[in-house]
């Protein structure tokens, strides 16, 4: 499955293979040359094609589905409706909670959002299925829809989100300086280039699914439960992922439709969501509203923070976007209160998008502290240092590591912050108003247990196997580096196989946890394999090291010798030949010794076993500071980001090149969030009207300036085996407030509703 050109990747310079080396992505050349085959590019004998019919109302009942014309259309094999599709079993959720309902029908009779799947047509060709799907006539009994947060009541309080200490309301009321404002973020979408979709094939009661996945084991569990087959009977294959950003971790309704259709027809079925369906078939980031009130003394020391948040969720599903997560930990405050509600609206259940919770949370608090800084006439950077939290203010534990002060210093230095002109609307370049803004970001270190297989083969090459995945963030590359360093072999000799539920198991790739989990597991497995090789070399009579007075051997650059140099020096292949071994393999894991098989299964197929970031003696987080320059046209209100300098603390970097690329990706996504992205809902229809890549605005290259990233992290032994913290989500957190703050500095206008489009500034 892997077609990676390791030579190319390793050619840049010498010590690339070591953990911490700047090895290029080993999957890069295969992707660029088209040799990388994505999940649903598989060519299968007898493949059929399914196309969905989606609801055109946001709320109501399906009262009739006329399938006659579609059924007799050319090439049509089946038209599935809620009445004719096979009924599945309910599946447990991602926390492992048992299903709410014993059965599950992926096609809806009760419509709770526009775009919900009502029917599906399966045909011999894709074009035939598209044509026939257009002939299916659905009639509805429409009822009024709740369209967005402004329709609702106050919503449902989520008690578990409440965080309080001191007496926040009273302290705010008594504070000599107060700011209080509302901050809103719209519905946003993950907008991955590769759409969602899958191929499902049954052979007897064994199911193979080719589907882009951030979590092959978790999704395999869902399929197994839906169809009542053992977990081992489901194989989920996801060699590459064309972007997930949180959206590809779960098996969804359309996945169930395809797998059910394949079972019913006895033929493989391919179903790929078209672009508009990618905006309605799974949830993007929920729209959010927050009010942040900060009370401070005249010196700028925060006395109290009162925070209220609300996010939209679905009529038939619950999504809580934790809006108080950054609010509660960024600054030291003696009094604090955060509460959160959700409002049910007629939408598909919102989901995870890069840094769910932390991202909108930071938009609120990091704009609010900026407002406080201007209110007091204190430099916004100074303001943040005055209120620096020396320990976690919420759980009152020390930080494992917090290089945020260093991030502020390094970022400010590189950006030239000291030259800032303090007053808003005071810097310009011709007809462009220039503004500088700063904001901080953070993301918790999520930890879990992983497993990996490492094989040393007869020719001296090494294979690493894991069901974890690479969606571009670099798993293929860093696992090769980890195995190469641990075993002492050149990285070109290592092949990594990922994204197949038959391989050694892994939990979800989300929450920036995978690198920490998997480097630990590969290190463990590779160490075990090495121990076995060395053990055999010393004890096997066929080995030239046999009888040597050494208790260990050293491997370097793929060659094995005694540490003091007496005796021979051999390549691993030569040694394997002498030992007569085809392979040495070791499955290593970081799972606690006492775990039962059930606990192990749950560790890989649910997120229930993940360790809280405040477990034990420390509070563990990654940190960053973004410095941004914007240019706002004084006539047009158009905002262009002209400079970004970000200093980030992700602990130890396993591969700085990949980490920088992840950070920059997050920063770019943050620029899009700040200036462009918004799912626009027609209030009369409860439907997204810009659900396509021409109208849902994402930044282009022309929108992105040179971005400078600076690593200020130090190895954090409390966060992972090798000392890394999180990388993938951190970069986006704090970008939007830094830009909003810069826009205020440029124009004197405070825009608190994202995105900051031109009409808000003219």
């Amino acid at each position, binding site marked *: 499955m892997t077609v990676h050109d390791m030579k190319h990747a390793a050619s840049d310079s010498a010590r690339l293979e070591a953990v911490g080396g700047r090895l290029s992505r080993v999957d890069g050349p295969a992707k660029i040359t088209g040799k990388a085959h994505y999940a649903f590019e598989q060519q299968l004998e007898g493949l059929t094609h399914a196309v969905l019919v989606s609801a*055109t109302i946001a709320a109501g009942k399906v009262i009739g589905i006329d399938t006659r014309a579609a059924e007799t259309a050319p090439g049509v094999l089946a038209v599935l409706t809620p009445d004719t599709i096979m009924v599945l079993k309910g599946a447990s959720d991602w926390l492992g909670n048992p299903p709410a309902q014993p059965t599950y029908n992926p096609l809806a009779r009760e419509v709770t959002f526009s775009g919900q799947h009502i029917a599906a047509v399966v045909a011999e060709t894709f074009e035939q299925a598209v044509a026939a799907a257009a002939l299916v006539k659905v009639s509805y009994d429409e009822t009024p829809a709740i369209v967005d947060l402004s329709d609702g009541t106050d919503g449902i309080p989520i008690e578990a989100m409440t965080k309080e200490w001191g007496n926040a309301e009273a302290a705010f009321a008594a504070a000599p300086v107060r700011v209080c404002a509302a901050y809103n973020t719209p519905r946003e979408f993950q907008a991955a280039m590769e759409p969602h979709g899958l191929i499902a094939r049954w052979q007897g009661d064994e199911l193979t699914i080719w589907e882009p996945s951030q979590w092959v084991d978790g999704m395999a569990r869902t399929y197994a439960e839906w169809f009542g087959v053992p977990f081992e009977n489901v194989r989920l294959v996801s060699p590459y992922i064309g972007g997930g950003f949180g959206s590809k971790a779960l098996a969804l309704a359309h996945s169930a439709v395809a797998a059910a259709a394949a079972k019913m027809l006895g033929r493989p079925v391919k179903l790929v969501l078209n672009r*508009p369906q990618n905006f309605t078939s799974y949830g993007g980031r929920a729209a959010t509203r927050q009010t942040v009130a900060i009370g401070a003394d005249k010196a700028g020391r925060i006395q109290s923070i009162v925070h209220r948040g609300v996010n939209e969720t679905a009529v038939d599903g619950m999504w809580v976007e934790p809006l108080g997560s950054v609010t509660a930990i960024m600054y030291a405050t003696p009094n604090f209160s955060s509460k959160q509600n959700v409002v049910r609206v007629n939408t598909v259940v919102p989901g995870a998008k890069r840094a769910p919770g932390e991202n909108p949370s930071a938009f609120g608090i990091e704009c609010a502290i900026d407002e406080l800084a201007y209110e007091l006439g204190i430099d916004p950077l100074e303001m943040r240092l005055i209120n620096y939290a020396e320990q976690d203010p919420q759980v009152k534990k020390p930080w494992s590591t917090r290089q945020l002060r260093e991030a502020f210093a390094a970022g400010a230095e590189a950006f030239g912050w000291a030259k800032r002109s303090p007053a808003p609307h005071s810097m310009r370049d011709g007809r462009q108003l220039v503004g500088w803004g700063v904001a901080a970001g953070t993301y918790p270190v999520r930890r879990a247990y992983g497993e990996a297989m490492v094989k040393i083969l007869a020719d001296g090459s090494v294979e690493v196997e894991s069901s974890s995945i690479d969606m571009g963030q670099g798993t293929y590359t860093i696992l090769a580096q980890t195995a190469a360093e641990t075993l002492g072999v050149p990285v070109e000799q290592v092949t990594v196989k990922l994204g197949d539920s038959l391989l050694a198991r892994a939990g979800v790739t989300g929450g920036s946890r995978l690198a920490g989990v998997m480097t630990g597991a590969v290190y463990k497995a590779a160490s075990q394999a090495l121990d076995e090789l060395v053990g055999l070399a010393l004890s096997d009579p066929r080995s030239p090291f046999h009888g040597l007075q050494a208790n260990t051997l050293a491997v370097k650059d793929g060659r094995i010798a005694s540490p003091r140099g007496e005796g021979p020096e051999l390549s691993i292949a030569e040694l394997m030949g002498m030992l007569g071994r085809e392979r040495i393999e070791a499955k290593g894991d970081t799972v606690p010794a006492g775990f039962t098989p059930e606990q192990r299964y749950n560790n890989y197929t649910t997120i229930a076993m993940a360790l809280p970031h405040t477990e034990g003696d420390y509070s563990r987080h990654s940190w960053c500071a973004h410095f941004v320059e914007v240019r706002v046209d004084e*006539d047009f209100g158009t905002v262009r980001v002209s400079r970004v300098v970000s200093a980030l603390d992700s602990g130890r970097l396993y591969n700085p090149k990949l980490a920088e690329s992840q950070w920059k990706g997050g920063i770019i996504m943050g620029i899009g969030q700040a*200036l462009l992205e918004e799912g626009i809902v027609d209030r009369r229809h409860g*439907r997204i009207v810009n659900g396509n890549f021409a109208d849902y605005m994402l930044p282009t290259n022309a929108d992105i300036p040179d971005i400078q990233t600076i690593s200020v992290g130090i190895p954090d032994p409390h966060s992972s085996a090798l000392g890394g913290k999180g990388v993938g989500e951190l970069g986006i957190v704090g970008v939007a407030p830094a830009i909003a703050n810069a826009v205020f500095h440029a124009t004197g206008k405070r825009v608190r509703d994202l995105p900051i489009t*031109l009409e808000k500034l*003219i």
Partner: protein
Amino acid sequence: MRDFSYLRADSVEAARNAAALPGAMLLAGGTTLVDLAKCGVAEPSTVIDVSHIEGLNAIDVNSDRAIIGALAKMSHVADHAAVKSQFPAVSEALWQAASAQLRNMATIGGNLMQRTRCPYFRDPANFPACNKRAPGSGCSAIGGITRGHAVLGTSEACIATYPGDLAIALVAFDAEVDLGERRLKIEDFFLAPGATAEQEHDIRPGEIITAIEIPGSAAARRSTYLKVRDRQSYEFAAASAAIGLELEADGRTIRDIRVALGGVATKPWRARSVEDALKGKALDEASVRKASELAMEGAVDHGANHYKIALAPRVIARAILKLGETA
């Protein structure tokens, strides 16, 4: 997308004959047609591929005029040295349109025939009411999401914006479109919706665009296209202006000026009132800004597109001022 038959035309004559068939549509670069077919808006029964007709992609420019074949690619015209020197606004309008990939495929004829980006027009499954698509069915946009809709030239039937860039420059410089039997001024070729929103162009069954001709002028030589949008690239205009300027020998009195507007009207919009107010006047910022306001006479907004009324005159003014600076 429903089944259709495919016909490859090797001559203009063959294309004209085929284009007269009911349900026939021409395929040039396909960037509009294929897109609209996927949306379920275009449902041709016959697709006539004109992209192989020889001789229709010529670009012929001298100081008197430019003649651009209907099959010339947007990218070729944008990069053409003589177009850049004699008609800079035309080149600028083209390279600020769409994306590099689209410009490499799309043709000038197809560009003039592109359809509105009104989201309701593009989604028949969810929004059956659209007078442009289904005459008499109503307008889903009015009362809905109107941020991109027009403020000039609208009617009760339709408020859809004409989205293109090239035609804005063409209308500023009095270009003509060659339909074989007929030649029309670009301004007359595009139709405002009135009560017949479905008719966007004065083109009859069996007619095809073979070329456009742009008369040369001093104003065309000193011209620019300014396109304003939230995203720096690959977005339709929130407001745009094609401006041509000719100054008297004194270097400050305006002898000739051309003003056309994009992104705010239902068709490529010539703002003659602005031209008239400035001709013979000295070019200074205050009078340019004041005159530019005249372009919005009669403008009607539908809520979310209100900003265009403030924005468009500023775009005109800044484009004129920019030309004034480049003596």
